[in-house]
C-alpha cells in the first residue's frame, strides 16, 4: 500500500514538475538544448592574422604609409609572425600616426616607437597591457598635442 502510494506521488510530481516544462517551441526549432561537450577553442585570438589590406584613407600621407605597411605585412610580417610587443603593432602605429598627423611626423613617430621597441628593459613598469598581454602604446600619446594625452598607469588592463 505504501509502495503504491509513493509510486503515485512520484509519477504525479514527475508529470507536474518536469525540468523541461518551460521549454517552448520557437519557430521550427524545439527549445531543447542538447547537453554535451562544449566546442572550446584554446587558441589565443590574434588580430594580426586578419589584416586589413584595403586603402580606406583619404589623404596622401595615409596612402603612402598604408602601402608601406601592406608591403611589410605581405612580404615579411605574415610569414615572420606576431613579434611586436605593442598594440597597435609598429606597422599599424605608423599607419595611424601618418593618418592622424602627416607622413613626416608619422615617420618620426614610427622611428621613435621602433627605438622603444628595441628597449626590453622594464617595459612592464611603463606600459599598461591589453587583454592578450601586449603593451598598450597608442598614437595619441606622441602627437605632441598635450590635450590628446590620456595617461593610463601600467597597473591597468586596457579593454579598448
Amino acid at each position, binding site marked *: *500500500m*505504501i509502495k503504491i*502510494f509513493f509510486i503515485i506521488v512520484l509519477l504525479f510530481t514527475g508529470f507536474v514538475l518536469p525540468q523541461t516544462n518551460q521549454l517552448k517551441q520557437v519557430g521550427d526549432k524545439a527549445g531543447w538544448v542538447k547537453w554535451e561537450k562544449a566546442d572550446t577553442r584554446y587558441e589565443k585570438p590574434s588580430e594580426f592574422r586578419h589584416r586589413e589590406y584595403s586603402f580606406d584613407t583619404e589623404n596622401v600621407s595615409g596612402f603612402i604609409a598604408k602601402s608601406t605597411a601592406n608591403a611589410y605585412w605581405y612580404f615579411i610580417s605574415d610569414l615572420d609572425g606576431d613579434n611586436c610587443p605593442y598594440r597597435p603593432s609598429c606597422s599599424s602605429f605608423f599607419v595611424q600616426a601618418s593618418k592622424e598627423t602627416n607622413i613626416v*611626423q608619422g*615617420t*618620426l*613617430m*614610427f*622611428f*621613435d616607437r*621602433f*627605438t*622603444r621597441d*628595441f*628597449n626590453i*628593459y*622594464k617595459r612592464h613598469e*611603463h606600459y599598461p597591457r591589453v587583454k592578450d598581454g601586449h603593451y598598450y602604446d597608442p598614437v595619441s*600619446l*606622441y602627437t*605632441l598635442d*598635450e590635450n590628446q*594625452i*590620456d*595617461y593610463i*598607469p601600467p597597473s591597468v588592463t586596457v579593454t579598448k
Partner: protein
Amino acid sequence: MKVVFLFLLLCITTVRFAQTGNIDFNSPNNIKKFADYLYCDDDYFRAAIEYERLADINRSDTIEFKIALSYSYIKDYYSAIQKFSGIINSSVYFNEAKLEEMKVNFLINDFAGLRSYFKNSFIAVVNKYQTEGEKLFNFSYLFTDDELPSKDEFLLPFDVNEEEKISSFYDWKKEPPYKKGTLAGIMSAVIPGSGKIYAGETGDGIVSFLTTTVFAFIAYDNFKAGHTTRAWIWTSVAALFYAGNVYGSVAAAQVHNAKITFEFNDGLNVYLNKKNYYITKYEFCD
C-alpha cells in the same frame, strides 16, 4: 499507513504554517526594514528603490537623506545632487546634505560649480561644517590650473596634524616637477638619448644613443671603405633614428608630465577618500 499519515500531516502543516501566511511585505514598516537591510548590506541601488517607495507613503528626514546617499554611493550623481538639494532647511540632515552636495561636485570634477556653490550657497545657509566645506573648497584648487590662493590662506582651515601633507600638495601644485619638452629635444639633438634620460626614460635614452651611434658608425665605415651607395643608405637610416630620437624626447617629456599629473591627482583622491571628504561617518547601520 503510519507513514502516509505522517506525510499528509507534513503537507498540511507546511501549507498551513507557511511564512507568507500573515505577513504584509508591503507594509511601510516592512518596506523600511527591508530597505534598511539592503542599505546596510551595501546594496544601495535596491535600497534607494525601496526607500523611494517608502518616501511616497511615509516621508522622514532620515529616509530622504538615505535616498540621496544611496544615489551618491551608486554613482548616480545627477539624482544624488537633486535629492541632496531637495532636503529642506528644517531637516535634521540639512547641513550634512549640503556638505554631501559639495562632495558630489568633487566626484564629478565640477570644481568651478563647487566653488560657486560654496561661496554663494554653502557659507550663507549652513551653520555647521564650515571648516570642512572650506577644506574641500581649497582642495578644489589642487585639481585645476586656476591661480592658487596664498599658502597661509590655503592652509588656514586645516588641522596642524595634516598641515605638512597639505603643504606638500600645495608646493607640488605651485611648482610641479614637470620636464621641459624643448629642453629634452635640444639635449637629444646634442647627445642622442640624453633628452629621454632627462624625461625619466633611461632605458629608452640608452637605446636611442646606441641605435643612432651604431648606424652612424656603419655609415661612416662604409664611406671610409668607399661603398658610397651603402654608406648613403645607412646615413639615411641613422638620420631617421636621430630625428626620431629628438622627436621622441619631446614626446617623452609630455608623457612624463601627464604621468606625474595623473599620479598627483590620484594621490589627492586617495587622501580625500581616506579622510572621507571630511565628512563624519553616519551611524545608520550600528
